[in-house]
Each structure stands twice: as structure tokens, then as C-alpha cells.
């Protein structure tokens, strides 16, 4: 799985949830959920594997599968509490597909997504503790809590905005200037088969969408 081109991973993770919602329930959702859960077992689906580069084996896949199942379990419980069994199965299978697809997509996206989130969360925690040291209580009435929220949010947001210039300078230093095409040192291989697979997935989604709305009785 980790040997696939990132765009192929993205296409699979996008197409499976799309098909889960487009295809008729519960069969369509059942198939997509099965495929998505099977993909969580695929060696190489875990972020830890891509970082170490070692042979993953099936144990890592089982960990990803367990994460997917545990993540999706509360949704099934909520659905069962609020709906009848056919609706629960129809929506539950689709949500299972989404969860399972995104759980292993993390392997690709975590590398590219926001590094700022954990930094800001840690900073928010430090601000909360600093404000408590200065005697600001987050308890009491709504007015007191809103004042505490303002005392937390303002320094956090203002300090984050001051970082924008630093980040912009860092990006310019690395050559990210509009109009200039970047040349990666080691671009990931993108074989013709994977390009074809991406097109097939896109066409499958379009075909399923057209069939859903055009063919009578297909719902």
C-alpha cells in the first residue's frame, strides 16, 4: 500500500466513501465497507510503517483494523438508539466505509497536513495554565467563563498570526514563489497502471451516480 503513488491512495480513499453513499443500501455499503476494512489489513497502511520503512507484517494491519472498528462502534450505537434496524444498517455501513477509508488514508495525509495543530494545542494548554497561575478562574457564571475564554483565545490567536510572516519567509526561502515550477529531487513513481486505476475509480463513481439518478427503481 505504501508503495502506491499518493494520488492513487487519495483516489481510493475518496472513491470508496463516494461509492458507499451512491450505491444502493445495504448491498453497496456492505461491499464498500468490506473493501475498506480489507484495505486496513493491507501491509503498509500504518503511518508507523512508512516512517520506519521496515517490513510491516499483518500485526500492524490488525492494529489499523482495530482502530477503525473502535472508531466506528459509537456511530453504530447512536444509530441503533435513534433508528430502526434497516436504517441503522444502511447508514452504519456507509459510515464504516468512511471511517475505514480515512483511517488508513492518515498514512498519506499526516505527512502533508498541518504541523501547526499540535503546536497550537500545546500553546493553548500553556496559556490556560499561565492564566490559572495569575488567578483567572474558568469557573463561575457564563460571563466569567466568557472572560476566561477571551483571556485564552486572544494571546493564542495573536501569537499564531505573528507566525504567519515567519512561515511566509520560510516558504519563500525554499523557493515557493508563484509562477515557478518546483522540481522534486525524488518524485514518487507513477506507473501507467496506477494512472489508469485513478481514471477507472473516477468513472466508476460517475457511472454509479448516473445510474442512481437515471435508472428507475435503483435506490
Amino acid at each position, binding site marked *: 500500500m505504501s508503495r502506491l503513488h499518493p494520488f492513487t491512495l487519495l483516489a481510493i480513499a475518496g472513491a470508496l*466513501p463516494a461509492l458507499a*453513499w451512491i450505491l444502493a443500501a445495504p448491498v453497496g455499503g456492505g461491499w464498500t465497507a468490506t473493501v475498506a476494512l480489507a484495505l486496513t489489513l493491507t501491509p503498509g497502511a500504518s503511518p508507523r510503517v512508512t516512517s520506519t520503512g521496515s517490513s510491516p507484517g499483518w500485526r500492524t494491519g490488525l492494529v489499523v483494523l482495530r482502530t477503525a472498528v473502535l472508531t466506528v462502534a*459509537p*456511530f453504530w450505537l*447512536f*444509530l441503533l438508539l*435513534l*433508528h430502526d434496524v434497516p*436504517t441503522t444498517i444502511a*447508514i452504519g455501513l456507509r*459510515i464504516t466505509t*468512511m*471511517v475505514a*477509508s*480515512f483511517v488508513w*488514508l*492518515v498514512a498519506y*495525509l*499526516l505527512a502533508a*497536513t*498541518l*504541523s*501547526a*495543530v499540535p*503546536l*497550537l*494545542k500545546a*500553546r*493553548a*494548554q500553556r*496559556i*490556560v495554565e499561565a492564566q490559572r497561575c495569575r488567578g483567572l478562574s*474558568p*469557573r463561575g457564571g*457564563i460571563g466569567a*467563563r*466568557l472572560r*476566561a*475564554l*477571551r483571556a*485564552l*483565545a*486572544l494571546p*493564542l*490567536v*495573536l501569537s*499564531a*498570526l*505573528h*507566525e*504567519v*510572516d515567519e*512561515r*511566509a519567509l520560510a*516558504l*519563500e526561502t525554499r523557493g*515557493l*514563489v*508563484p509562477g515557478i515550477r518546483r522540481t522534486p529531487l525524488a518524485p514518487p513513481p507513477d506507473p501507467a497502471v496506477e494512472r489508469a486505476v485513478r481514471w477507472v475509480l473516477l468513472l466508476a463513481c460517475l457511472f454509479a451516480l448516473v445510474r442512481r439518478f437515471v435508472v428507475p427503481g435503483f435506490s
Partner: protein
Amino acid sequence: MSIRLLALIPVAAAISLALSAAVDAVALPLFLDTTGTILATALAGPAVGIATGVMTSAVNTLRNPTFWPFVVVQIIVALYAWLAARAGLFRSLRTAVPAGLGLGVIASVTSTPISYFVFGCTTTGGIALATALGRALGLPPLGACFFGSFLSDFGDKAVTFALVTSVLHGLPRRTAARFPWALRAIGAA
């Protein structure tokens, strides 16, 4: 799009995510997950705001996949914030809070059909409980769904608008001048 505005997008998305996690410290029933979207729009216009909203939803989706269909709400929030910034509604809390309340109504009207038709009104815990309360009060399914969304969005968006207004007024003038819409949003240009 300039590099500075490009750098603003992940920072603003991170602000939304960090604030929605940090709000637990004051134990208020708020999400604040659109703070970065509204702030980015007020600073840099609708394109940056929409990109921030989409980025926020994408990262939230990694934690909870049911967030993704609600990306539409983030886009509506960005467009509304742009109109508010153009009208100078961030110039004081007296104009910002009513604007935020208006956004709360629009956001709940937008999120209700998504929640109802996509998830059968079963999304995250708090909203699902509010929806169950609406049903217990005898509302029809769609009405209970709107009731849950309205309860969660109405106050949240007003507080978010007030926070963004405080931030915009707290920004040093030199920093604000680096963003194309900041001064106009607070009525200083």
C-alpha cells in the same frame, strides 16, 4: 495568492482546531471550529476563508469522518463572514454579536438538511442529544434535527464573531495592514 496568504491558511485552520480543543478548559458548550475560517476571511477575503474552512474540515475528518459533509457549512460561513467584513460589521461587539447570531441561524439551516439526509440526524454526541431532546419535546424528525443544530450553532457563532472582533481590534495596526481586508473589516479603512 501571495505567500503570506498561503501561509495564513494552515495557521487559521490550526487556530480553529486548537481553540475547539481548548474551549473545554472553560466548560462552555461551544465548538469555535469556525473561528479560523471567519478570521481568515476577515483578514484576507473569501478565497482564503473558504480554503481555510475546507482545510479545517479535512483535518477534522481525519479525527471524525462525519465532519466531511459539513464542509458546506464552512464555505457558507466564509461567504457570510466576507459579507460581514465588507459591511464593516467587525467594527464593534455591538455589530458583531448580532451578525454572529444571524450566522448561527444560517449555519443551522444549512447543517440541518446535511445532518438529516446524510446521517439521519445522528452525528456527534452533543448534537445527537439535543436532537433527542427535540424529539422528546414532540417535534417532528426534521424539526428535532433543526432544534439540535440551532441549539449548538446559535450561541457558538455569536461568541466566535465576538472573538474574531476582539482579535482584529487587538492586532497591531502594522500587522493588520499586511492583510488586504483587515482594516476594512474593522471599519478603519
